[in-house]
């Protein structure tokens, strides 16, 4: 077996050193009845690199890759161009095959990267401090809700979710809340040109620990975060802003500067590919430093070594499970280190200038697409405002149209019926995302196909 260096001679020499007659003697503590005598039946035996690669390639060919289609899906996962050097750097063995940097003397590469990453995220979000990453946007969202509960010292149990929060994020929050006795106040999404900020504000009361608002929201609209923040703060509640498209923050004001107390989101757009949903990159930041010790997850901080040289370490770990056990702020252990590196590298390549250009190019193409598609008979644009994703209302069932168009290698968008099953009123809604990878020809292809199918 190509990954196993021991030879049979080694094995027998080592058993001699140990003083064991055979390998089974080392498994003596396993009760005889539970010990398997041979390989598990019905499973294939070992295979060569060539044949495994062939098998996996065959499976991969059964999928329609985004780059082989006219592609318009978003809803929390976006197709962006990732510079070649990003993948090169994350494949360096010193990053790829390192462990969590608990031994800082020989992990400064990862630690300095995390310090840079935390700074980039904090600045992008308009916050004081970001952590070293969470699993993904949806779990970061739940962790933010749990943190708001800690800030309220368990005295406030109500969590107000915007109806335009990504439904999977809302479902994760609802799932976890079932077990912590938080009361989740949700609302069905409504198909209006602007988000119903006033309706949301009306649901905040003195028992509310936090309000969770997505920005831009699941329909691509832009809620007035400053207004919601003010209303939340009036009632002593925290505003949690959720962002699923970090590229947008190159064009629109940051949630932190608009008053959000905790900002969380999905970082996949920067440096991390679509990968059918994971691994992704959860981002987590707090606007005010006073909340740092309530945060979940790893934090990297600056310090000096015994020789006076600057260096970095994981710090404030008394919040974490390996120190605090059942009193920890979260049970999280592993984060998304390598995805954080990909984000860090991609963001470094972009820089301020590149991020702003990337954002404006996304917005320009989205405006072009929205205008072109809205000209198709039977198609209406819902949004007043948007960044790179908007909702179309079709004269027809959006989900079946999406399915039909795959025949022409068009991935037309995400139907609202897919996101909100059981809400019949949304069945004509189609969420369309446009990025710098979308061409004007792609838009024309989609427009013509919709013209045909809606005729």
């Amino acid at each position, binding site marked *: 077996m190509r*990954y196993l260096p021991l030879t049979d001679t080694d094995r027998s020499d080592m058993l001699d050193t140990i003083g064991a007659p055979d390998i089974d003697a080392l498994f003596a503590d396993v009760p005889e009845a539970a*010990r398997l005598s041979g390989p598990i039946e019905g499973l294939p035996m070992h295979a060569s690199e060539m044949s495994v690669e062939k098998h996996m390639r065959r499976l991969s060919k059964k*999928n329609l890759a985004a780059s082989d289609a006219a592609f318009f899906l978003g809803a929390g*996962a976006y197709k962006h161009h990732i510079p070649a050097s990003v993948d090169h750097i994350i494949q360096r063995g010193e990053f790829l095959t*390192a462990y969590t940097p608990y031994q800082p003397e020989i992990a400064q590469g990862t630690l300095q*990267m995390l310090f840079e990453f935390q700074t980039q995220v904090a600045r992008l979000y308009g916050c004081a401090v970001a952590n070293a990453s969470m699993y993904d946007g949806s779990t970061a969202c739940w962790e933010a809700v749990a943190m708001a509960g800690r800030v309220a010292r368990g005295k406030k149990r109500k969590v107000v979710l915007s109806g335009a929060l990504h439904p999977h994020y809302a479902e994760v929050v609802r799932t976890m809340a079932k077990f912590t006795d938080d009361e989740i106040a949700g609302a069905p999404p409504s198909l209006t040109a602007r988000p119903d900020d006033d309706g949301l504000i009306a649901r905040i009361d003195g028992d509310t620990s936090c309000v969770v608002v997505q920005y831009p929201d699941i329909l691509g609209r832009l809620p007035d975060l400053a207004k919601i923040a003010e209303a939340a703060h009036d009632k002593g509640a925290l505003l949690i802003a959720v962002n699923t498209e970090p590229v947008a923050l190159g064009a629109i004001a940051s949630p932190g500067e608009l008053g959000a107390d905790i900002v969380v989101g999905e970082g996949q757009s920067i440096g991390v590919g679509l990968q059918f949903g994971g691994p992704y990159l959860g981002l987590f930041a707090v606007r005010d430093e006073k909340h740092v010790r309530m945060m979940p997850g790893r934090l990297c901080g600056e310090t000096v070594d015994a020789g006076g040289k600057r260096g970095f370490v994981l710090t404030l770990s008394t919040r974490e499970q390996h*120190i605090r056990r059942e009193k920890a702020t979260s049970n999280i252990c592993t984060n998304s280190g390598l995805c954080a590196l990909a984000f860090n*590298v991609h963001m470094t390549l972009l820089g301020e200038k590149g991020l702003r*250009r990337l954002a404006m190019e996304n917005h320009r193409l989205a405006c072009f697409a929205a205008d072109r598609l809205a000209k198709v008979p039977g198609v209406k644009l819902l949004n007043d405002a948007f960044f790179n994703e908007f909702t179309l209302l079709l004269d027809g069932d959006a989900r079946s149209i999406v399915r039909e168009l795959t025949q022409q290698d068009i991935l037309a968008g995400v139907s609202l019926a897919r996101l909100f099953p059981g809400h019949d009123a949304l069945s004509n809604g189609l969420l369309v995302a446009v990025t710098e990878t979308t061409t004007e020809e792609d838009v024309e292809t989609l427009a013509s196909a919709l013209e045909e199918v809606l005729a």
Partner: protein
Amino acid sequence: MNAPNASGWKPGTPVEGHNAMSGPDTATGNRALMLEEPLLFEIGHAETTGVDLPEPQAGANRLGGFDRKDPIGLPGLSEPETVRHYTRLSRQNYAIDLGLFPLGSCTMKHNPRLNEKVARMPGFADVHPLQPVDTVRGALEVINELAHWLIELTGMQGVAMSPKAGAHGELCGILCIRAALEARGDAREVILVPESAHGTNPATAAFAGYRVEDIPANSDGRVDLEALKARLGPDVAGVMITNPNTCGLFERDMKAISDAVHEAGGFVYCDGANFNAIVGKVRPGDLGVDAMHINLHKTFSTPHGGGGPGSGPVVLSEALCPYGPLPFTARTRDGVVHLVEEENAAEFDHTKAFGRMTAFHGQMGMFTRALAYILSHGADGLKQVSEDAVLNANYILRSLEDVLDAPFGHSGPCMHEALFSDKGFADDVSTLDLAKALIDEGYHPMTMYFPLVVHGAMLVEPTETESKAALDQFILALRSVAERAIAGDETLKAAPYYAPRQRLDETQAARKPVLAWNDANLT
């Protein structure tokens, strides 16, 4: 014995008559290939970019008046500067690619490069999680094929694939237990966890709303079955047990433990962090386990990546299967693999699901890598994996127990990791000192001060991907630093000497946290 190689040659030993020379300070702070690297914020500029993008054009603005007005503060670098910045940083890291990485319980084994290649195939890397199901049949087949292997290897009934890492999987398993108990109207409040458990276990149980109580251990380093039985009762929802446990020992009484817990109406959660010691040799399902997460980054070699991403599928017993979270995949009799989500759960008789752990389908990029690893080994190779892992650990245990105290060495062989204590060290020398000296010998330290039940614990896990020569050199190094620790060698206190950094001031880092760069530091 234990010569670094057959000829006895040691790298770095000067040839007789030539004096080794320590040099003067350098102007740059660099020392030849050991290169210092500033922070991005000290070398980058807001006007520099390494990506060619069009100039923004005057045109439509539909941002609703929410335009960003102030600078963000994100410096950029050109591509050559970027590649150099991160390449220089990378060289300050230890990694499996550089040498043996003996972190007990963390399972730092070789990461096969085929798996990296496979994960990057466009049909896996470049598909969106919400594409119509007909365009992602191959991705669903990967999930289903891996699920099938995990079920067969563990002898369980089903598997929840979506948890994002081990601790997330623990949470998933405990929530399944809670959902199953609630379904029978049985509110229980306590989860029992051994003192030797990973910190995630009690944290998970608390996060799921349970009170955590300790399970006592016996002098053999295993669960005290009688004490456990005495504590079981109608308030105990279940136990969380790591097997093999964190002392590197197999819980001989596992089946009896499971039977007792079941009899008392509770469930058995097994922390699968150490599954790599028994894969292909023992099936946890045969030991009465109800739920167990599998760290794909441990047992099935997906890269640790400097702290993630992980992946933590949870295998479930028949009793817990109905409560597993959405989404999951199911293969119907016609061979087609389906994606089961909230909307079609009824079709697949899965309406009792406790909810959703994450937005999408789990760590697809880890599934492809783990499946490639499993297919490469096959049923026969996986059995060899655990045998070699256990053989390597016992070789280390028995090669060093004359110099290092092995607190449970008397009770028989260890499994995949060898546990030592600091007994016998000179008074002012600690496990930490020994570990830092090991850095100078060119190794990442072993897991230290864990498990908590052993004083100054050192948990050494070599894994199966080390050669005998690599083990021999490691044994030589560990023996040497252990002898220095016993002799009270004062120079240990300031180790490491040859790493990119000396010991870092962690107290200062925590007392006055600096968690982001401040531009005011630029002169």
